[in-house]
């Protein structure tokens, strides 16, 4: 058990495992700008961990500190139990894949991949075998004698991966590696990265600002905000059980009901809102707490077209404001009592889709399982888990 200061467990199931990377109260500033502010994290071996956040949130700085390209101002980073502050890059079990690939433009693909092995003073014959095997693995054997500028973006990406992987790192650090690729290629490379990570059994720490990429690839997502960890956990946990509004909005769309907690019972709370009483799933809250009840578009259910019948529990009457056809589904915006806005998506083939006409009144159900409570303000609620 090596959970640092007991604060953050990347995943519930990981707590029992040995953490490979332990980041302990790390701070880093550039001039007056604090890039990383007291971050503590423990990342498990063999996991695909994503550092997610907007540009300037410190995710790349944190990655570079793990890789030894930046030094923390204070705090420590341990990899496999060893403090790595004094390690030179060649002794670190980490290797970096850069955003722009950073291939050596004056060397062939082969020489690029061989470079790390040459620095390790491996015999030439052995290097040749390993480079050939690695290029085979990424499917670039016939490009061995090409220069990086003669390759496509996806091929350059594979060379960058091969160059890092051939040195057999325990941790691969990836800094927005797919940002420069177009959508189709990006999706294919995502799948390749994921299967590569599984087959090589290497820990990936992956930096991205794309929440779809983060949710789709990761075992663990660390959402960052202004140099701090806003929340870390499994993708489903981050998506369905966000710790605060920042996380909730960063990883997807939400509709919000403001309310006050009236009473609580095992994982559920009854809240009073301008639209009536609602039951919601919740982290530990106290009666009287001001909260936001949030719901993802796909959690909202259309209970009855017309909405003139008696409303049941967790329902509200709303009028269709706008309906946007998006092909597979329709994005519908409702306006409820007290100007509450509810967003939902409806499959365009669903029977109730026909009733969605702007101005139409409809009864919506917000199921208790899909309605989640987050604190209305920072520091006002015991459930706040960010450091």
């Amino acid at each position, binding site marked *: 058990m090596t959970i640092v200061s007991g604060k953050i467990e990347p995943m519930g199931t990981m707590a029992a495992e040995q953490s490979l990377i332990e980041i302990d109260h790390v701070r880093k500033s550039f001039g007056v700008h604090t890039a990383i502010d007291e971050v503590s994290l423990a990342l498990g071996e063999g996991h695909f961990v994503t550092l997610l956040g907007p540009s300037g949130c410190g995710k790349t700085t944190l990655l570079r500190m793990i*890789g*030894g*390209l930046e030094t923390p101002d204070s705090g420590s980073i341990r990899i496999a139990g060893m403090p790595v502050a004094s390690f*030179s*890059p*060649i002794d670190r079990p980490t*290797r*970096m894949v*850069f*955003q*722009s690939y*950073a*291939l*050596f*433009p*004056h060397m062939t693909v082969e020489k690029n991949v061989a*470079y*790390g092995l040459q*620095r*390790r003073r491996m015999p030439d014959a052995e290097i040749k075998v390993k480079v050939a095997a690695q290029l085979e693995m990424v499917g670039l054997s016939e490009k061995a004698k090409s*220069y990086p*500028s003669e390759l496509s973006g996806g091929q350059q990406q594979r060379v960058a991966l091969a*160059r*890092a992987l051939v*040195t057999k790192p325990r941790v691969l650090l990836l800094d927005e590696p797919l940002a420069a690729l177009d959508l189709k290629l990006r999706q294919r490379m995502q799948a390749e990265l994921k299967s590569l990570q599984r087959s090589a059994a290497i820990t990936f720490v992956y930096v991205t600002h794309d929440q779809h990429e983060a949710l789709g690839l990761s075992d663990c997502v660390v959402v960052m905000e202004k140099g701090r960890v806003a929340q870390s956990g499994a993708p489903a946990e981050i998506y369905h059980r966000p710790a605060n509004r920042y996380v909730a909005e960063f990883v997807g769309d939400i509709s919000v009901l403001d309310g006050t907690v009236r009473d609580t019972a095992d994982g559920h709370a009854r809240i009073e809102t301008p639209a009536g009483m609602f039951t919601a799933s919740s982290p530990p809250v106290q009666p009287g707490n001001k909260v936001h009840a949030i719901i993802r578009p796909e959690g909202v259910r259309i209970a009855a077209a017309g909405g003139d019948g008696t409303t049941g529990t967790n329902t509200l009457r709303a009028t269709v404001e706008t309906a946007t056809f998006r092909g597979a589904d329709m994005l519908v915006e409702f306006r409820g009592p007290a100007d509450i806005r509810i967003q939902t998506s409806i499959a365009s083939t669903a029977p109730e889709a026909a009733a969605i006409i702007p101005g139409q009144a409809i009864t919506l159900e917000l199921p208790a399982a899909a309605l989640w409570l987050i604190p209305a303000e920072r520091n006002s609620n015991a459930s706040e888990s960010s450091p």
Partner: protein
Amino acid sequence: MTREHRIGTFTLAAWTALVVLFLLLPLFVIVAFSFNDSDFPSFPMRGLTLKWYWRFLESEELLTALWNSALVAFATMILATTFGTLAAIGLARSGARTQKFMRPLLSTPMMTPRLVVGIALLNMFNLLSMQLSLLTVIVGHTVVAVPYVILVVTARLVGLDPRIEEAATDLGATRTRVIIDILLPLLRPAVLGSALIAFTLSFDEVVVTFFTTGTENTLPTTIWAMLRYGITPEINAVSTLTMIATVVLALGAEAMIRSGGVHRR
């Protein structure tokens, strides 16, 4: 409209021709007179001859001067390129504040009038009790040439992705290895180009040479001394040769610096 346009085009062409003529005519005159079969530079030309070139090749004084010039220029090129390139790399890696302070400081010798640089160097050599010789000339020329090298190499360095160096470091390269394996090959066009610039600068430098040389003369100072007896056709011949060499080197430097792309074999 079209007529006015045509007149405009013609005027511009004529004006351009005049300017070019003004710039190049003196050079043509030198070249022409170097082949003139006459002891005095005068038109019309008496006839064509190569004797002034032969006279140059027979002149002990001029050949020694040429050798001195080549020696000084070569040494200056090596020293200035080495110092300048390393300085540019070091500067690029230092903090913004250091750069802001150091960059103008390092280009001072380039901005200062050569006369002042020459006098300053002479003073310094006197203070250090250094015997004036070709060695002091080399030192002087290096001082003048280093800023140019820094300028050219820096221009190329800022265009390099710093992550390429980081990638090499990440793969286990030491600082020295990063310079040898990554930076120098990528900077090669700029380094070679600035080497040619340094050579050319030194080869026709007069003022600093004048102050820093002892008994030896370089080609420019020899020509300068010979001018006391008037412009002889010999001087025209030497000047023509110097001009051709310099132009070739300068064009080479430019081509080298322009070839920004990656070198392949």
